[in-house]
């Protein structure tokens, strides 16, 4: 038998456990990232000291400035990766943006059909899209490489944009289909009564209302393209098209690299997707859940 303790004397175990877990997880999630951020602002001497400096003792922007204007020692040690970093950021930005736009253009039509029309084979088609999403990238990378090679598209933006579109398209369609369903049908019907054509209705009535969904799906596609590594590794070879993950990986596989410079490159690579994730947090969480739990 448990002794009845008056309510106000009870130790709030549940609260304690909850906060301990919450703080533990917060540290687990943030400390690794904090470490490379801190390191990216350190001088090399501080970064490799034992015991480690957890806070940069004399913060410096040297590692970041080195990408644009390498000092002599950096140019010597960091080598090509150092010099390629700014180009790769530009490449990543262009490739990811184009991927997002192309995806939205293609997926909007498809998603609209699933949200508004009853048609034969719609289930099969949706499953087909889903299966494409399951296909491992490695399964298509070899033919993709050979194809791009024969078209002379190796080391170009187009090769990357096309491959990332195939990754992102199925999930974009799935996300948009859910968002479109939440747009009230009455809007389009009203427009139709006003004798607007279908395209006009889409463009000036439907899409503006569905804009939040479009943005979320676009952000998904952008992040997929920005983060992708394996295809970029195969398809690019120079600073003309190398994306930031490829250059960041070059830092890691080069034994001469300073950890501080590598950390700075890593931070640069993570800032855009991280900002997008934070800004569009709610929509992205909805989209992730919609893309999987609801099928």
């Amino acid at each position: 038998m448990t002794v009845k303790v008056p309510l106000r004397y009870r130790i709030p175990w549940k609260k304690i456990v909850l906060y301990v877990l919450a703080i533990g997880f917060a540290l687990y999630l943030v400390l690794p990232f904090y470490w490379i951020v801190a390191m990216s602002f350190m001088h090399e001497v501080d970064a490799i000291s034992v015991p480690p400096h957890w806070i940069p003792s004399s913060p410096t922007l040297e590692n970041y400035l080195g990408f644009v204007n390498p000092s002599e020692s950096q140019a010597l040690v960091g080598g090509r990766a150092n010099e390629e970093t700014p180009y790769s950021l530009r490449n990543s930005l262009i490739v990811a943006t184009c991927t997002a736009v192309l995806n939205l253009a293609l997926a909007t039509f498809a998603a609209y059909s699933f949200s508004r029309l009853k048609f034969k084979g719609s289930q099969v088609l949706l499953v087909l899209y889903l299966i494409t999403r399951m296909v491992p990238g490695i399964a298509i990378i070899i033919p993709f490489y050979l194809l791009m090679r024969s078209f002379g598209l190796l080391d170009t933006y187009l090769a990357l944009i096309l491959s990332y579109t195939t990754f992102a398209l199925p999930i974009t369609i799935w996300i948009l289909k859910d968002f479109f369903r939440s747009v009230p049908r009455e809007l389009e019907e009203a427009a139709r009564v006003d004798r607007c054509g279908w395209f006009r209705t889409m463009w000036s009535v439907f899409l503006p209302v569905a804009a939040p969904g479009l943005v979320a799906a676009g952000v998904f596609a952008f992040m997929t393209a920005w983060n992708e590594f394996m295809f970029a590794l195969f398809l690019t070879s120079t600073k003309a098209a190398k994306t930031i993950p490829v250059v960041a990986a070059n830092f890691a596989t080069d034994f001469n690299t300073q950890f501080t410079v590598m950390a700075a490159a890593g931070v640069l690579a993570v800032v855009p997707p991280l900002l997008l994730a934070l800004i569009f947090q709610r929509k992205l969480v909805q989209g992730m859940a919609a893309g999987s739990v609801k099928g």
Partner: protein
Amino acid sequence: MSVIEARRPWSDTAKAYALNAPAMIVIALLVAYPIVYSFWVSLQRNNLKRPRAKRFIGLENYRSLLTDDAFLSALRVSALFVLVVLGFTVVLALILALVLNERFRGRGLLLSLALLPWAMPGVVNGLMWRTIFDAKTGALNGLLSQLGLIDTYHAWLTSGTGAFFFTAMAQVWNTLPFSVIILLAGLSTIPSELYDAAKVDRAGAFQRFGQVALPWLLHPLLIVLILETMNAFRAFDTIYVLTGGGPGDATTTIALLDVQTVLTFTDFGLGSAYAWVITAITLLISIGYIGLLYRKGNFEV
């Protein structure tokens, strides 16, 4: 009504397929065709460095897999990697999702933090953990020795077992958020009356979890299991940067072996055979996934 019908020459089905045509064409050209083409390449001796030796050899590449030590080892590593990553991910994700499902101060902040690993590119994840696990200057060594848990710095990644385990841990950190979000979405569908009823019945926290939450969570849990299995099975970025497959072949998963075969040895025939094995296994898993979605009637279109 009939007037409007008459002004619509296209049936819904025709219209729908017209709308889907662009996406379908892109997918046919960029996914379906390459997959079939890849099977064709897998039936060839096809090495870029020896273009003259290129010829059709039937299932020879596949037959060679049975005695291919590198392949068998990679398959073993991959299977083990999936098990370890999955185990840790599911347990951690479940706890974190349950925490996030409660109401407390700082919940929003924790949810934002949980998205951080998700936004991180696998490559950056790899190099981040490299600086942490580093033998001479790593943060893990620094932290553990300052806490008095170790006397001397350890080289975490030099033993096969160590490298494998820490690579798996790096992967877990990266994939955790996805599982958390799915489980959290599952938890949020549980009607609060059920919890209230359990409270009235004086059910303890564990009982409440077992009898109220768990049945509702089974479906999202299965989805997490399947999707994370697929993710772990094809994991590449983090491992490539963190260990490059080493030491020896301790962390050479099947995906890594495939990329090495193709990029380093330019053996496209054998590489394609590897890729097809990966595809076949992934397809089996995804059939399970889709079957599951259908069974639960969650697949309304």
